[in-house]
C-alpha cells in the first residue's frame, strides 16, 4: 500500500502547487494550462484520444511483432556460423545507431503518401529490432559450456543442439530483449508518426502536433498524458510476461 500512497501523495501535492501557482502568477493558458484545464481537455477529447492511442498502440505492437520475428530468425541463422555473425553485426549496429528521425523521410517516400502507417511500422520495427537481435544472439551463446560438452559427448546434431540447448538457454535473454524493444517500438512509432507528419495515421503523435499547431496547450498535455499512460501500461504488461516466463523457465 505504501508503494502506492507515497507517489500518489507527492503527485497530488505537486498538482495542487501547480494549480495554485499558475492561478496566482497569472500564467496564460496557452503557455501553461492548469491541471484542472488539462483534466477538462482530457475529458472532452477522451474518445478521440482513446482511438488515437489505440492506433499508435496497434502500430507499435505490429512493429514489435515484425522486429521480433525478424530479429530471432536472423540471430538463429547467424548463430550457425561465426563468419556470418561477423558479417551481419556491423550492419545491425549501423542500423541501430542511425537516428530514426534521419531515415524516416526516406521511408515515408517509399511507402507512399497514402500509406504513412506502413512507413511508421517499418521505422518502429527498425528501432525495436536491435535489442531482440542482440539479446537472442547473446542468449544463444550463453549455454553452459559443460552442457555444450555433454552435447558433444552425446553426438547431438547441430539442429538438436540449437533446439534443445541453445534456444532454451536463450529464452530469458529473448524475453528481456522483447521487453526493451516494446518501449522502443512505442518511441519509434511516435517519432515516425511525427516525421510522417500527416493526418493519414491518426495516432497520438498527430494529436500532439495538431494541438500544438492550434496552441491548444491543454489538449497537448492531455495527449502527452495519454501517451505516457499507454507506454507505462505496455511496460507493465511486459514486466509481468517476463516474470511469468522466468518462473516457467526456472521452475520457481
Amino acid at each position, binding site marked *: 500500500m505504501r508503494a502506492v500512497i507515497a507517489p500518489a501523495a507527492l503527485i497530488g501535492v505537486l498538482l495542487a502547487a501547480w494549480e495554485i501557482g499558475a492561478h496566482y502568477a497569472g500564467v496564460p493558458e496557452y503557455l501553461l494550462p492548469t491541471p484542472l484545464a488539462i483534466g477538462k481537455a482530457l475529458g472532452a477529447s477522451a474518445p478521440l484520444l482513446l482511438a488515437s492511442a489505440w492506433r499508435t498502440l496497434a502500430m507499435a505492437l505490429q512493429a514489435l511483432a515484425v522486429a521480433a520475428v525478424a530479429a530471432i530468425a536472423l540471430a538463429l541463422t547467424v548463430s550457425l556460423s561465426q563468419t556470418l555473425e561477423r558479417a551481419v553485426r556491423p550492419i545491425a549496429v549501423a542500423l541501430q545507431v542511425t537516428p530514426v528521425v534521419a531515415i524516416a523521410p526516406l521511408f515515408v517516400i517509399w511507402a507512399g503518401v497514402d500509406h504513412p502507417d506502413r512507413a511508421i511500422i517499418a521505422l518502429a520495427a527498425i528501432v525495436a529490432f536491435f535489442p531482440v537481435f542482440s539479446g537472442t544472439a547473446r542468449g544463444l551463446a550463453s549455454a*553452459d559450456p*559443460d*552442457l555444450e*560438452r*555433454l*552435447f*558433444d*559427448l*552425446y*553426438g*547431438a546434431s547441430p539442429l*538438436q543442439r540449437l533446439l*534443445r*540447448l541453445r534456444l*532454451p*538457454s536463450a*529464452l530469458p535473454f529473448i524475453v528481456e530483449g522483447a521487453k526493451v524493444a516494446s518501449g522502443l517500438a512505442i518511441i519509434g512509432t511516435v517519432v515516425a508518426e511525427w516525421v510522417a507528419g500527416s493526418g493519414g495515421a491518426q495516432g497520438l503523435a498527430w494529436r500532439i502536433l495538431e494541438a500544438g499547431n492550434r496552441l491548444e496547450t491543454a489538449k497537448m498535455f492531455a495527449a502527452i498524458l495519454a501517451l505516457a499512460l499507454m507506454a507505462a501500461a505496455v511496460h507493465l504488461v511486459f514486466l509481468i510476461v517476463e516474470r511469468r516466463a522466468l518462473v516457467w*523457465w*526456472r*521452475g*520457481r
Partner: protein
Amino acid sequence: MSLATLERVEVVYPGRGAALGPLDLSLRAGEIVALVGPSGCGKSTALRLLAGLEAPTRGEVRRLTARGETSVVFQSATLAPWLSARANVSLPLELAGVARGEARTRADGALGRVGLGAAADARPVQLSGGMAMRAALARALVTGPKLLLLDEPFAALDEITRRALADDLLAIWADTRPAIVFVTHNVEEAVYMAARVVVLTSGPGRVAGETRIDAELPRPPGFRATAPFREAAEKVSATLAGAMAA
C-alpha cells in the same frame, strides 16, 4: 584387456603452454582409478582426452568404447534449469534417438537407482547440491556406460553427503561394473573408492606414482579405520607431497 589408453600424450594450449604430459595411463574394463594431483596438473584435461572431448597435441589416445558408452560427470551438476530432473536424465537417450516414452521410463529407473525416484518432477533449482549431483550421476548412468568419467564430482558437497554419495556410487558400480576414472583433491576419498590411485605431478602433469589398494570393492563397512586404508592413504599423501615439491 584395456578399455582405454593414453600413450605418451601431451597437451599444449596455445598461449598458455604445456598443460599435460607426457603421460601414460592404461585402463582396464571395470576398473576404478583415481587421479590425484595438485591444482593445474591437467587432471581434468586427462579426463577430457579419455572422453574424446579433446585431442592431444602429441601422443595417442586409444578408446575401445563406442559412442554413447562413455559418460561424464562434471564438478558442478550442469543440469538444464528449464527441464525436470526426469527430462534432464532422459536427454542423452532422446538425443540418441530413443523414443521419448521409453527414455522417460529408463530415466525414472536411473533416478530410482541414485535415490531420487521421488524427485523426478522437480526442477534443478528445487534440488539440494547433493540431490543435483545425484541427478547428474543418474544422467551419466542412464545410457549404461562402459566408461564413467567423474571430474571432482563431490568437491562442492559437505563431508557427510560426499561419503554417502561415494558409497552409493560403489554400490551402483557393483551392479554394472563400468570402468570409472575420477579426479579428486581428496586423498582419503581416492583411497576409499579406487583400486588404483594415480598421482600426477604439478603441471604439466606426469605420473608421479601409483598406489594399488587390494581390499575388495565395494569396500567393507569400517574400511576407513583399517590399517591397509591408512597405509595406502599415507603412501598416496607422501607421493603427492613429493609431486608438489618437484
